[in-house]
């Protein structure tokens, strides 16, 4: 037993237990130490990677040469990220195709040359992979992976071309329109001394960091290169502008909105009569003072303020010697980033010559217009005169016709008047005989009244004939002709003219019946005159009616010898007559043609046939 009462065996057991516990603790510590070293190595790898990344960042920040950046990048991808190979393709601005710009890890000259000459066309299906579901990694829209067992046929097709067995393909810039392509990978699958291509997130951390770092630099540099290219173009444009500015005949200016010239070219100075642009800038304090009409300057400024520009704005300007020129101004407002107007700039064209030409043209046009107006007035007056003459002609025609008709009335009345005279003269005789009874009185009176009624109707017929037609009506042609013949009955008998009317009794036309009667009277009177003048014995006029092709055709043919061929084309002209001044006015046939063709939209023609003339009316 020990002093504290415990046995040696107990103490031994405690010590054994304690030893065992300590041994277990040591084992745990060694295991933990192993883990610690393991983590430490990984941490060190990461720190080294970040350090390398930092160094890379310094390198690429130190240059603005795209080629240098790309070379640093592919070197990093191989030397630091431990991929066997890396190649950078950048997009050619002109063609849009991707060309290899920087390569690393291609130590076989033939392979290097082959990859160096590889071009990925702008429309290559490979590029479409970045926007196609399933081809790209789900979380990385800009990354494609080609590795054994996890690669599309399309990506595999690039293995032999690019001499990669497995690779990762990053698109820098928008996946839909990449600016550059970075390809990293290995010529052998499962490489011993290179980083294996893997889509596992852990494996992509380093590459992701690297791409994140370079992508912005590469994109920015590409854009800077593009900006530089544009700047060069701008410089070229500026030189061209300056060339134009210095040598242009037109005036080019910049001025403040307040009205002070900031810049002017020699052309403007010459235009305004100054020795040099400097003299112009030094002597003109307010552009508005140059304007002959200051309100035009205000309008110009108002237009620019409102719409940002003016185009072909005409104004009169004073030259230095106070002479006036016309100019055409095109200008715009140049604004700063905040939208405030910085200055106006524009071009002034001297249009004085043009204005003078325009003025001459304007005066010429005015003279022409005056002449035209005078001429129109005179034409109007002439037309009015002609109309008056027409009216007079018509009146004459109607008066002549009236005279003709009065003759006919006289012919019509002669017999009834004789009858009436006989009856009146008979009354005293009968009375003296004592035979004058009531029956006689009634019988005589009735006879006399019948005669008077007849004469009265005759008057009514003539009066009706002279009532002007105002409204077109449909009338029976035959009835109209027969009525007309009744008006001429006396004359026709007196002249021993036989009238034969034949043809379609139902033919109707739409027009002015009285005017049509006037035409028929003219034709019949002309035939009568021809009969009389040529002393024809068997006088005959045939009037035929027929319907043809929807029209009514009236033929008036006589046997009075016809119309001489020399004048057959002139007989419808006004004042043309063969009858002599005592008998004809020369307006009968003119009026007849006017009535048929203008008033009734028909045709009146004439021809010679079978020893006479034939007038053909088509309605």
């Amino acid at each position: 037993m020990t002093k504290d009462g415990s046995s040696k065996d107990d103490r031994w057991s405690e010590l054994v237990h304690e030893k065992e516990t300590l041994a277990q603790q040591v084992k745990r510590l060694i295991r933990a130490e192993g883990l610690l070293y393991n983590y430490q190595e990984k941490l060190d790898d990461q720190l080294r990677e970040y350090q390398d990344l930092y160094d890379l960042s310094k390198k690429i920040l130190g240059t603005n040469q795209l080629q240098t950046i790309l070379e640093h990048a592919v070197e990093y991808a191989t030397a630091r990220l431990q991929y066997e190979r890396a190649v950078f393709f950048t997009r050619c601005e002109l063609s849009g195709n991707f060309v290899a710009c920087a390569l690393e890890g291609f130590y076989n000259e033939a392979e290097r040359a082959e990859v160096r000459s590889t071009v990925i066309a702008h429309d290559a299906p490979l590029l479409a992979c970045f926007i196609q579901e399933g081809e790209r990694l789900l979380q990385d829209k800009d990354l494609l992976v080609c590795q054994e067992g996890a690669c599309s046929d399309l990506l595999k097709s690039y293995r032999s071309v690019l001499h990669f067995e497995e690779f990762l393909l990053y698109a820098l810039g928008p996946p839909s329109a990449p600016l550059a392509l970075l390809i990293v990978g290995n010529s052998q699958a499962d490489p011993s001394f290179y980083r294996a291509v893997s889509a596992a997130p852990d494996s992509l951390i380093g590459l992701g960091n690297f791409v994140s770092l370079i992508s912005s630099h590469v994109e920015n540099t590409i854009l800077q290169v593009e900006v530089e290219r544009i700047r060069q173009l701008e410089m070229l444009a500026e030189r061209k502008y300056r060339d134009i500015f210095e040598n242009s005949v037109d005036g080019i200016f910049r001025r403040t909105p307040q009205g002070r010239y900031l810049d002017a070219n020699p052309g403007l100075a010459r235009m305004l009569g100054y020795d040099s642009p400097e003299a112009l800038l030094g002597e003109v304090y307010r552009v508005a003072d140059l304007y002959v009409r200051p309100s035009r300057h205000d309008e110009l400024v108002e237009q620019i303020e409102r719409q940002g520009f003016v185009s072909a704005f005409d104004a009169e300007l004073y030259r230095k010697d106070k002479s006036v020129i016309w100019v055409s101004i095109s200008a715009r407002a140049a604004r700063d980033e905040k939208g405030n107007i910085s200055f106006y700039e524009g071009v002034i064209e001297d249009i004085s010559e043009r204005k003078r030409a325009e003025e001459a043209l304007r005066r010429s046009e005015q003279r022409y217009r005056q002449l035209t107006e005078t001429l129109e007035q005179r034409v109007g007056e002439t037309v009015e005169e002609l109309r008056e003459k027409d009216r007079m002609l018509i009146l004459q025609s109607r008066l002549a016709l009236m005279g003709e008709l009065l003759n006919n009335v006289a012919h019509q009345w002669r017999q009834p008047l004789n009858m009436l005279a006989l009856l009146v003269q008979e009354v005293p005789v009968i009375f003296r005989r004592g035979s004058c009874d009531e029956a006689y009185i009634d019988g005589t009176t009735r006879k006399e009244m019948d005669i008077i009624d007849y004469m009265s109707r005759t008057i009514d017929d003539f009066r009706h004939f002279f009532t002007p037609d105002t409204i077109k009506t449909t009338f029976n042609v035959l009835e109209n002709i027969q009525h007309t013949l009744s008006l001429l009955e006396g004359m026709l008998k007196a002249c021993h003219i036989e009238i034969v009317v034949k043809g379609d009794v139902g033919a109707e036309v739409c027009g002015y019946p009285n005017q049509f009667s006037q035409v028929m009277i003219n034709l019949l009177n002309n035939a009568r005159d021809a009969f009389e003048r040529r002393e024809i014995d068997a006088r005959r006029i045939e009037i035929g009616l027929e319907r043809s092709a929807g029209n009514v055709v009236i033929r008036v043919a006589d046997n009075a010898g016809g119309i001489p061929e020399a004048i057959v084309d002139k007989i419808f002209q006004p004042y043309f007559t063969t009858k002599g001044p005592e008998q004809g006015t020369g307006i009968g046939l003119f009026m007849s043609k006017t009535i048929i063709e203008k008033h009734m939209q028909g045709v009146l023609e004439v021809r010679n046939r079978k020893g006479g003339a034939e007038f053909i009316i088509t309605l």
Partner: protein
Amino acid sequence: MIIVATAVGVGFSTQRNSVEAGREAARAAMLQVAMARPDFVFVFATVGHEQQALLRSVREVTGGAPLSGCSGEGVITWGMVDESNFTVAVMAIKSDEMRFGNVSVNGDGRSARQVGRALAEETYRVLAPDSFACFVFADGLAFDFEPLLRAFEGGLPKDQRLPVFGGLSADNWISRKTYQYHNDEASSGTVSCVILSGTAQVAWGVNHGCTPVGTKRIITRCKGNVIYEIDGIPALEAIREYVEGDLNHHWNKLSLNLCLGFRLPQHLQTGYNEYVIRYMMAKDDRAGSVTIQSDVENGTELWITRRDKELMHEGLKSTTERITGQMGGRPPKFVLQFECVGRGRVLFREQEKLELLTQLQTRLGTALPWIGFYSYGEIAPISGCNYLHNFSAVVVSVY
């Protein structure tokens, strides 16, 4: 008056193009001392490189000077440590006070002892009365090195036994193929050897910095360099208790976290340590065995040990003190360092490793021609006996 001199330049390259890397490192080495053609070249490189192309380019630049070296897990030069897959260091030496005789022996399926004897025969041809050191670079995966070393030593005349230094070639944890360099050839399964002769001398130090954890264990069943049982249980089972994770995954790295310590005889402990350390280079899950780089016998005592950073710092300090003591104030002409892979990036952080190296180097001089590599086993004498070490740093100063 004859001026006796030695010019040594060191260059390195981290280029991945093997041809360019070899050229760059060799040119840098020769330019460092404006050397037209070296007498001898040491080359250490990692296995990412195309080895034959690498050597060819080095030889092209160095004018076909005799060359020895091997692949390592990383290379070391003055102020630089690189454990990447693509690195190469070249030391070019021109001296009229030293001569270099290099030989190579191919394993050709022979036993380690046979190879050792063959190496001795080859080496004998270049041995001279003034030979003072031997450097050996052997395939770290092909040989049971302890017997090879014993056979090599035994094959040399007793009066011409030399201190042997060097390391077992490595392949960056791939454990598939290491390379030994001899002139134009980068071979596997061979031993490359250099004999230094002349008026120069060597001073060296070796230290491992490991410490036992737990009590003594006994090997209860073994054969050659394979240990089947410890304390009556399968060796792998005894080890597994100390290892976190799946033993099948990166065994070579997992097993680094603990190693086996064997007590040295008292007379060998002087200037070294109580234990010599062995790395378990392989295992057999079915047999439950582990393989080390020296033969053991049943009943041998062993201790499970672990690496200790403080002891390593202290060990390097004592190493340099020992070396400077040996040199007696004379400066090194050049220095070779053979460092265990277990003392590299798997143990030290990058900065720690560099600080440790800087301390070591600056204790021996300034801007010294320095070359070394990370090995699968280090070779250096302790107390007059050539020994294979694991988890050790061997520093050899030629002065």
